[in-house]
């Protein structure tokens, strides 16, 4: 049996006395698109941020290809990784944010080549060639020399996706990638993500786009109150939810669509 690319075991996260994640167990297989849905405040984004250790879990472990994230054995003693050790691990997990977070002082192209050149030490010419291919893929080739302030939200988000892909990650994390976009710009970003899924990229997507979850997702996780309430094949969960909380959430969300 092939071990899962990512596996989460007994993950808990509290902010002060407020428990945001109350024990999460989940697995992500290579090549799968896992969508996480649920009402706001259900802990979806916190879960995603724990996967690459942007948030430090209170307890529990995330494994990436069998290795614990942010932790390291030294003999029989478990140590926390330093920030720079963690940086090496994070190269394997790309992340796309709700607010894009492109570097405003760099052009689209410079945003994409920054990490390959600085972190991996790839020669600039080669990095530019690869970056242009990626920008072409997300439909941003003709805007390569624009600064983020000169791009629409959708264009910025597609550039951010290319920037993450430039590090050739094993896994891409998407934190509500279309929630900050004007409605008419959502489609172009979802189309880019759909293309990425077709190419076989492993993706974990926190989203409110039920259509995307149904059409592109291989696995759907419904969260509420910091726990996974229900999970399974998207079509199953969406059309025949077994839990009352899932039913009431879906009836509220699907009414709007």
């Amino acid at each position, binding site marked *: 049996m092939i071990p899962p690319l990512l596996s989460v075991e007994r993950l808990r996260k509290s902010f002060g006395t407020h428990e945001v994640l109350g024990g999460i167990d989940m697995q992500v297989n290579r090549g799968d698109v896992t969508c996480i849905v649920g009402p706001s405040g259900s802990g979806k984004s916190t879960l995603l941020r724990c996967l690459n250790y942007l948030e430090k879990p209170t307890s529990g472990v995330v494994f990436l290809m069998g290795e614990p994230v942010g932790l390291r054995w030294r003999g029989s003693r478990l140590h926390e990784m330093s920030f720079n050790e963690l940086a090496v691990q994070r190269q394997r997990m790309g992340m796309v944010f709700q607010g894009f977070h492109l570097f405003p*002082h760099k052009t689209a192209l410079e945003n994409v080549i920054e990490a390959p050149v600085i*972190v991996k030490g790839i020669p600039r010419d080669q990095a530019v060639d690869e970056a242009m291919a990626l920008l072409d893929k997300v439909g941003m080739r003709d805007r390569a020399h624009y600064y983020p302030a000169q791009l629409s939200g959708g264009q910025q988000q597609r550039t951010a996706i290319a920037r993450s892909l430039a590090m050739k990650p094993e896994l891409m994390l998407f934190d509500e990638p279309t929630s900050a976009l004007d409605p008419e710009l959502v489609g172009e970003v979802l189309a880019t993500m759909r293309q990425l899924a077709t190419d076989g990229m492993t993706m974990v997507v926190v989203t409110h786009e039920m259509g995307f979850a149904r059409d592109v997702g291989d696995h759907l996780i419904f969260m509420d109150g910091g726990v996974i309430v229900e999970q399974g094949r998207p079509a199953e969960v969406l059309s025949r939810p077994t839990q009352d909380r899932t039913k009431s959430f879906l009836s509220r969300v699907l009414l709007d669509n």
Partner: protein
Amino acid sequence: MRRTEPPKNRPSIHDVRPVPVRNVGQWLGGAVLLLLGLLFFQILVTNQNMKWPVVAQYLFDRKILAGLGMTLLLTFLAMVIGLAIGVVLAIMRLSSGRVFRAVSWAWIWFFRGVPPLVQMIFWYNLALLLPETSIGIPFGPKLMSWNTNDLITPFSAAIMGLAFTESAYAAEMIRAGIQAISHGQTEAAATLGMTRGQTLRRIVLPQALRIVIPPIGNDTISMLKFTSLVSVLALPDLLYSAQMIYARTYQTIPLLIVATLWYLVLTTILTLAEHLIEHRLKASPGQIARRKWWEIGLFGHQRAQVQA
């Protein structure tokens, strides 16, 4: 309100231009100020005590020019050293280490609180407190030592006083600049696998310095003026060179005018440079606003604000 009948043969409202509002107050006030200005100018020109020929004689005097060079050197060194210490202090202040934060806080508290003039005199007299300066193992043997009086010259005392004061102000500005960069920027860099140092150098500092450059420009202008304090250490800067000459020739006012003119020339150049840089930075990256050269004047900044 009583309505008066409109005259019979009034033109259509679309055919005439309205008479603009006349601002009588501006005219009156302007006239008074102009009169005062003329009076001042008359004093400048006709008062024999100004001794313009003496001013002209000393304006390019070798000693004055040497003093000018010293003033520029002091300004440059104090700013460079002050900013370098300031960057380190700002990073320490934002560090998670409690000792780093405390030391940075204490340094800023001390050097912002003590006037640079007091500091300079204090540094100059350091030998009274520590007669010997040595390198060695703390509380252990000394490897090398010097007589403090040999290390502390008027120049090094002046640089310390000016640079340490600047470092405290620069640290606070740079800290504010770094904090103005959104947390999302460092998170995005982290998810790309960048280390702390790479994130600081490549992502945070370039953006923070853009914010901090205008206040640093202002500080440079202030520093240029603060260097005149070094005359108490008998360091031949612009002011002290002028003082030395008038102590000998008793031409006090003309030589003070010489110094004043040079300070004005330097601050004007620095102000223009600062405005140029500021306007370039204010334009969003990639579309640097094309301005006519006369629009970037001494007071271009204020004027643009009034118009906005």
